[in-house]
């Protein structure tokens, strides 16, 4: 039985509706677990509560019912085993690239020589060593997102929570970043929960894909991605089975029958 790193057990999240009475159920009775070293993607329609699950996992929000567990312990608040990364790079403009990478470890009180060592190692790994003294505004979008990934890895978390990390970069850069992420996750043996709208991204990066329903979001299907080379999403894109999985996910999400279709027809 593999070690479970991250688990959601009967998680329900309700919010008070803004501006009026009533309760909005964002997520309903979600249960799943992710084993050590596993990469799982979460897909579903907009507003189905994917990001809510991420906030619960990182301890930034407490669920209304149920609980999230990291390494078997209930998540009661932010903890150093979990680190997250968003679509926005959230780099601090007054810090150099290296200082941005050190942001998390600095907060956690890691000594300066060790912080420097980790930052330099990560930046070298992402081919950013020459840019360690640059400021974020001097970098391209793809490089900034790499720095954000390095910052996430610098705290050496067991679990990475990634919320559409590459959706703001262009398609070609995205493929390179996906490859970098996949390699890094494999090499370091990290566990990751990846929220994405990009079905090909979900298929090529993950061991498993969870499909969520519209609000109130709940998990309606779990698909094992039975393909080799999880560390090389570009190779997986060449694999015919990837297209089959994407097609299956499209069917499951009912893409083609949603409200977007007429808008696309007009364009």
């Amino acid at each position, binding site marked *: 039985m593999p070690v479970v790193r991250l688990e959601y057990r009967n998680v329900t999240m309700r919010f008070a509706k803004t501006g009026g009475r009533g309760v909005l159920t964002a997520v309903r009775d979600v249960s799943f677990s992710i084993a050590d070293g596993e990469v799982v993607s979460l897909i579903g329609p907009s507003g189905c509560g994917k990001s809510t699950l991420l906030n619960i996992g990182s301890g930034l929000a407490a669920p209304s019912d149920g609980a999230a567990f990291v390494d078997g312990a209930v998540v009661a608040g932010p903890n150093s085993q979990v680190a997250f990364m968003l679509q926005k790079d959230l780099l601090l403009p007054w*810090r150099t690239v290296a200082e941005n990478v050190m*942001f998390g470890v*600095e*907060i956690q009180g890691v000594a300066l020589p060790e912080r420097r060592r980790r930052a330099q190692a990560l930046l070298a790994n992402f081919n950013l060593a020459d840019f360690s003294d640059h400021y974020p*505004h001097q970098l391209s979008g793809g490089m900034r997102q790499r720095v954000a990934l390095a910052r996430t890895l610098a*705290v050496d978390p067991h679990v990475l929570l990634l919320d559409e990390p590459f959706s703001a970069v262009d398609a070609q850069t995205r493929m390179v970043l996906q490859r970098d992420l996949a390699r890094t996750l494999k090499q370091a043996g990290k566990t990751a929960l990846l929220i994405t709208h990009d079905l090909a991204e979900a298929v090529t990066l993950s061991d498993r894909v969870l499909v969520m329903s519209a609000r109130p979001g709940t998990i309606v299907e779990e698909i094992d991605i039975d393909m080799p080379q999880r560390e090389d999403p570009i190779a997986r894109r060449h694999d015919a089975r990837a297209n089959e999985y994407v097609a299956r996910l499209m069917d499951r999400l009912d893409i083609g029958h949603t409200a977007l279709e007429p808008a696309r027809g007009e364009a």
Partner: protein
Amino acid sequence: MNGTARSAPMRKGAAASFALLVVFLAAWQWGPGLLGIPSFIVPPLSMVADEFVHAWQVSHLLLHTGVTVGEVLAGFVIGSLLGAVIGYLLGMSPTAEFALSPYILALQIAPKVAFAPLFILWMGFTVYPKILVAILIVFFPVMVNVLTAVRAVDPDLINLARAFKATRAQIFWKVEFPTSMPPMFAGLRIGSTLAVVGVVVGELVGGNRGLGYLLTFGEGQANTPLVFVSIVMLTVVGGIAYLAVILLERRVLHYLPARTVGGNF
């Protein structure tokens, strides 16, 4: 980046600027005579220059300038510190801001210089009422800018810090405080020129020291050149204060792309 493309218009601009200065000074020197304006209305440049030397030697111009500079400096430093501290406190406590905002708004609308006579009644013909007017007038632009900046910090940035288990103090010093720097400097720039206004109004109302006093003294003597000398010196003091803030801003905000910092100086 494209340094040559930008430096050519800058060189042209500087040359035009200098030419304009020469034209202005020439017009000041010979214009009044040509237009038949008497020298007690608009004294020509040379007369003002003579009066400058006279004021320096006889009327303690340096002393008066020094007093004004001291008051401006004290008022500006205390006013901006108070503005920043209150701005951060209100920015972090929406309840306090909600409770205090009508009073802050009222005080902001009230013309601060109108308090000058009151402060002189309270504190006499000393430097303190002048400093107090400057504090009051500098306070608001700094406070409002800091408050708005703290409110506008990206909540995801705060969440990022929280996810790394940052304490409240760490969130403030590592995220909120640096984020508020550019707007705060915008407030300080405004404050630096307003501080001079506050001090001068205080000196005009009462006292026997400072450039504002020298100005009223010149007026009483019908010494128009002395009035001009005082105005020129006040402009120099304000200009140096503004420039000092710009230089500090450039040092502190060195990480920003060059053209977004500190106006055109």
